[in-house]
C-alpha cells in the first residue's frame, strides 16, 4: 500500500476555498485600490459632468516644481539611508558578534523603538529640541552657546529624527546576516596571512552585502514617502513627496493630479530601489 503523504491528503481533502479569503482581501484592498488610482490618474475632470481620458495630469507634473519635490525626497531618503548605513554597520557588527544572551538584550533595546508609536518618538524629539527645551538648556548650561538655537522646523531636525527612527531598520537585517557569517572563513583569512583590516574589507564586508541591501531598502522606501516627520518637525518650509500627496488628497481634493503625482513618485521610487538593487548585485558578484 502506498503511503499517502500529508500534502497529498491536504490537496485531496481540503477545499481550495479556504485559502481564498486572505487572497481576496489582499486583492480587494491592495491591488484593486492601486489599479484604481492608476486609472484615476488618467482621468482628467473638466467640470462636474465631463471628464476625459488624457495624460493632462501627467503633463502638469512636468512642471519643474514637481521634479524639485521628488528630487528633494530622493536626496533626503538617500541621506538618511547612508547615515543609517554608516552608523548602523558598526553597531550591527558589534551586536552580531556578541554571545547569545547579550545579543538578545542589545536587540530588544533596538526593537523597542520599532514597537513604539512613531508619534511618541517624534514628540520626544520635539520636546528635547524645543527652543527652551532640554538640548538648548544643556548647551546653555555648559556655556557652548549664548542664546538658544532653533533646531526645530529645519532640515537638520528632519534628518536627525528620520535617522533616529529608521536606524533599527538598518541594524536588524545586518545583524541577522553578520551572525550567520561562517567564522571559519574569518579564521582562514587570518591564518593565510591577511591583516585584520584586509579580512574586514575582503571577507566580512562583502559577506554582509545582502544585509546592507535589505537594510538600505527598508530605510529608503519608507523614508522616501515619509510624511509625519517633515510635517511636524520640518515646519512648512519644504514640501516632500509624502506631504504633497496628503495635501492633494486631504486639502485640495485634486485627485487627478494627486493620483498622477502618487503614481509618478512611486515609479521614481521603484526605479531608485531597482538601481540600488542592481548596484548591490554588482558589488556582490564582483566579490565572487
Amino acid at each position, binding site marked *: 500500500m502506498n503511503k499517502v503523504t500529508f500534502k497529498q491528503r491536504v490537496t485531496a481533502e481540503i477545499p*481550495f476555498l479556504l485559502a481564498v479569503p486572505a*487572497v481576496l482581501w489582499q486583492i480587494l484592498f491592495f491591488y484593486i485600490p*492601486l489599479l484604481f*488610482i492608476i486609472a484615476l490618474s488618467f482621468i482628467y475632470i473638466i467640470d462636474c459632468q465631463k471628464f476625459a481620458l488624457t495624460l493632462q495630469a501627467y503633463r502638469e507634473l512636468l512642471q519643474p516644481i514637481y521634479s524639485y519635490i521628488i528630487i528633494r525626497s530622493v536626496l533626503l531618503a538617500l541621506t538618511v539611508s547612508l547615515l543609517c548605513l554608516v552608523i548602523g554597520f558598526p553597531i550591527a557588527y*558589534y551586536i552580531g558578534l556578541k554571545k547569545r544572551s547579550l545579543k538578545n538584550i542589545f536587540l530588544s533595546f533596538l526593537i523597542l523603538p520599532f514597537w513604539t508609536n512613531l508619534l*511618541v518618538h517624534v*514628540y520626544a524629539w520635539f520636546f528635547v529640541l524645543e527652543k527652551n527645551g532640554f538640548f538648548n538648556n544643556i548647551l546653555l548650561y555648559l556655556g557652548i552657546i549664548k542664546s538658544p538655537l532653533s533646531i526645530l522646523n529645519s532640515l537638520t531636525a528632519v534628518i536627525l529624527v528620520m535617522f533616529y527612527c529608521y536606524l533599527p531598520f538598518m541594524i*536588524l537585517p545586518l545583524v541577522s546576516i553578520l551572525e550567520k557569517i561562517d567564522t571559519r572563513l574569518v579564521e582562514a583569512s587570518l591564518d593565510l596571512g591577511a591583516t585584520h583590516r584586509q579580512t574586514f574589507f575582503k571577507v566580512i564586508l562583502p559577506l554582509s552585502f545582502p544585509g546592507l541591501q535589505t537594510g538600505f531598502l527598508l530605510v529608503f522606501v519608507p523614508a522616501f514617502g515619509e510624511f509625519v516627520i517633515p510635517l511636524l518637525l520640518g515646519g512648512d518650509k519644504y514640501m516632500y513627496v509624502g506631504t504633497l500627496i496628503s495635501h492633494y488628497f486631504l486639502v485640495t481634493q485634486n485627485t487627478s493630479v494627486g493620483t498622477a503625482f502618487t503614481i509618478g513618485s512611486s515609479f521614481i521610487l521603484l526605479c531608485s530601489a531597482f538601481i540600488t538593487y542592481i548596484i548591490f548585485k554588482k558589488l556582490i558578484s564582483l566579490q565572487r
Partner: protein
Amino acid sequence: MNNLYESLSTYYLPIFVATCYLFLYIPIIVLVIFSFNSVAFPYHWVSFSWQWYQELFHSLEIWHAFKNSLIVAFSSVFLSISLGLLFTFYGAQQKLRRLTPLFYGSLLIPEIVIAVSLLSLFTFFSIPLGLITLIVGHTLLGLGYVIPILSARFSELDVSVIEASLDLGATLHQTFFRIIIPLMSPALIASSLLVFIISFDDFLISFFCAGTSAQTLSLYIFAMIRTGVSPTINALSTLLLLLSSVFVLVFCSLKTKIRIF
C-alpha cells in the same frame, strides 16, 4: 580569530555603540522624567507629581480614543490571524505556495501610497470612513507580516510528527487542531502581538482612512503635538512606552526564533 574581534572591539566599538544607544534613549528618558514634573511649563524641573497622569485618566477624549484604538487593533489581529491561518494550512497544497509573494506587495510600497489608494477607493464607492475602514486597512498591513511569518513556521514543522498523527488514524482536522496549531502557537502569539502593535501604533492609514468621526490614540497625539507641547502628552507617551516594553518582553521571551527582518 579572537585577535580580530578583540582588536576591533576593545575600545572604540563599545564606546561608539554606547553613544548610539544613548542617542536612541536620551529623548525617551527626558520625556519620561518630565512627565512627572509638577508645572505646566514643561522645561524646568520643579518637583515630582502625578497630576498629569490624573488629568490623563480624567480626560474622556483620551479614553474614547483609547477604546477606538483597542477595537481596531483587536479586530485587525483577529481578522489577519484567522485569514493567515486558513491560508497557511491550506497553503500546504503546493500550488498555493506560489501565492505567498502576493502578500509582500504591501511591504514594498510606502504606506502612504496604500493609505491614499484605499482612501480613493472608499470615497469613490462612497463607503463611509470610520472604524470599519480602519480595520480593513490595518488587517491588510497585518497580513503582510502574518503570512510570511506563519508560512515560514509552517514549512519548518516536522512533517514526520504530522504524518505520524495521520497514520495513527487522526483525521486531517484533528491533526490541524491537536498537532499543528499547538506546534505553531509561539508563532501565532508572536504575530498577534506584532499585528496588535502595528495597528495600535499606526498613524498613516488611520490619518487617511479614519474620517472625522473615529479618533484613535495616534490621531489624538498628532492633534496634540500640532497644538504644542503639554505634559499630558508626556504622561500618555510614557504609558505607551510601558505598554510597548511589555510587548517586547513577551515577544522576546517566546523563543520563536522569529526575527521581524
